């Protein structure tokens, strides 16, 4: 019996929510089609995660464990996945769409000689492969796509599916792995980590995003305060990551991250399509902008027309009050 295989991304000892979303979708599809729902974890401590996965109806977990996976290098990961796919021969290998999976999807597709559908917002398994929907043209429109093959790689935008739990006792299979120095031709020199990213943006339930309208330290402090009151992740438009005001990891949009919070608050952001491309999966969008014609108001559920420097203080104060009561 063949299977659907979900690649589980981990970060700081935790499974990423976006991977669990994908896993939840795969379980649904596996149940519908009577296939096995399997997962693969590739990490220095990969075997630690089977427990967490048991809550998501997984029948088998492939584990590839090696200290090398602590580093974000594509060659070892490709080699590990190649071995697992060879073994599991799944109908679908599904990833959460992250910079990590984007780094390998093309190469894996070529090395396995299987088609790939990147960044879908929904997908289903068909007789001949996978069909799905992908946002294109900076997420202005949706395309219906289809991939034909015995195995198809799919990556899924965060926030596309809800988490659904279902308990199981997964069997754990460890895959032997080794990689030699010579095989890894690129050299990781250094990891520069993001500053002040308390909450992982793509996982955050609330996102406060700053744009060019936030023009000074005073403004950034208000952003921090609002974020801390809401326990939100801070994001930024390209205008502010480019200027150095915010760390590039915090950029939201076509070039940056796709966020899928319950609440997104865009502050001093005009709403260029490339930014909006990253926030469409938000449940509720709030915009604060002094220009009543700013395009972001076209998609905001609640739009406040006003100077952010005047709007934010009472806004923060009121939220504090509401949070207390």
């Amino acid at each position, binding site marked *: 019996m063949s299977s659907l295989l979900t690649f589980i991304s981990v970060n700081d000892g935790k499974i990423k929510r976006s991977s669990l979303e994908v896993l939840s979708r795969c379980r649904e599809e596996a149940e519908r089609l009577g296939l096995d729902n399997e997962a693969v974890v590739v990490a220095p401590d990969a075997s630690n995660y089977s427990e967490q996965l048991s809550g998501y109806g997984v029948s088998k977990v492939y584990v590839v464990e090696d200290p090398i996976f602590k580093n974000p*290098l*594509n*060659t070892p990961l490709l080699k590990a996945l190649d071995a697992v796919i060879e073994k599991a021969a799944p109908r679908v290998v599904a990833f959460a769409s992250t*910079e990590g999976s*984007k*780094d*390998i*999807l*093309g*190469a894996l*597709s*070529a090395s396995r000689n299987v*088609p*790939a*559908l*990147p960044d879908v917002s929904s997908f289903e398994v068909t007789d001949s492969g996978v069909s799905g929907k992908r*946002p*294109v*043209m900076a997420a202005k*429109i*949706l*395309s*219906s*796509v*289809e*991939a*034909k093959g015995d195995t198809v790689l799919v990556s899924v935008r965060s926030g596309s599916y809800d988490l659904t739990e279902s308990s199981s006792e997964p069997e754990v299979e460890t895959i032997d792995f080794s990689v030699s120095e010579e095989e890894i*031709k*690129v050299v*990781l020199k250094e*990891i*520069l*980590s993001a500053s002040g*990213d308390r909450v*992982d943006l*793509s996982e955050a339930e609330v996102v406060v995003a700053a744009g060019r309208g936030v023009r000074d330290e005073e403004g950034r402090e208000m952003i921090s305060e609002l974020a801390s009151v809401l326990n939100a992740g801070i994001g930024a438009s390209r205008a502010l990551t480019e200027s150095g005001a915010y*760390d*590039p*990891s915090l950029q939201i949009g*076509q*070039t940056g991250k796709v966020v899928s919070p319950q*609440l997104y608050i865009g502050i001093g952001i005009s709403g260029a*399509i*490339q930014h909006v491309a990253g926030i*469409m999966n938000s*449940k*509720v*969008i*709030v915009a604060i902008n002094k220009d*009543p014609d700013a395009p972001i108001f076209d998609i*905001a*559920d*609640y*739009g*406040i*027309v*006003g*100077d952010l420097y005047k709007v934010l203080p*009472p806004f923060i104060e009121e939220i504090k009050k*509401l949070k207390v009561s």
Partner: protein
Amino acid sequence: MKFYICIKQVPDVNAPLQIKEGQLLQDTDRMILNAYDASAVEEALVLSEKHDGEVEVVLIGPDKAKETLRKALAMGADKGTHIVTEDESYDSAVYSKILTAFFNDKEYDYIFCGKQAQDTDSGLTGGMLAMQLDLPYTTNAVGMEFENGSILVKRQGDAGQEMISVPSPGLVTCSNDMNEPRIPSLKGIMQSKRKPVDTISTGDLGLSEDDLAVRTQILSFEEKPEREAGRKFEGEPDEVAREVAKLLDEEAGVL
């Protein structure tokens, strides 16, 4: 030091679009150089100016895409190859196959691609090409410099940035967060006309129809489920701020 940049002509995502019977139509027919590729060209030009290099661009696309090739030459690339195909159904896999065939007999230090094509946002071609040419690679570069004969790439990862050294020959895919691509000068535009452009077909590369069969396909396009514009609040900052905060709590229930 020799650079090859793979560039794609894409429709301008800012131009008005419409969908008719599932097909995507552009009012202005406006095509541009993929912004990520423009950044790749820019970066190669800067590196080759510093380290005495040579920059070639290669584009797969219809006849009318030659204006995009010209644009890269006008920016300063030295030479171009236009692989002419009128087939619009090709996916990243097919493009990477054509590029693989093209690069098979070429000598180079680095191939740069865009991290993704602005229209499809696939982001597959670079990785596919690297694998097929058996090149070390890295993706999503936001900065580059030379160090001991290798390119040191600053790449944007999920949580932070990584410094990765890619030896030659190698491949890098580029983000537009890396630089501000130059706008061609008048001189550049004039010189571009005299720069050599090879125009070839996929047949010239020894590829047959079967080699170019797609396995992924766009079946149709549709409007995204419309996000209704909600309410706009204008007035006293103090009042509207408090009102919206309350609504977020009571009406939207997201606090």
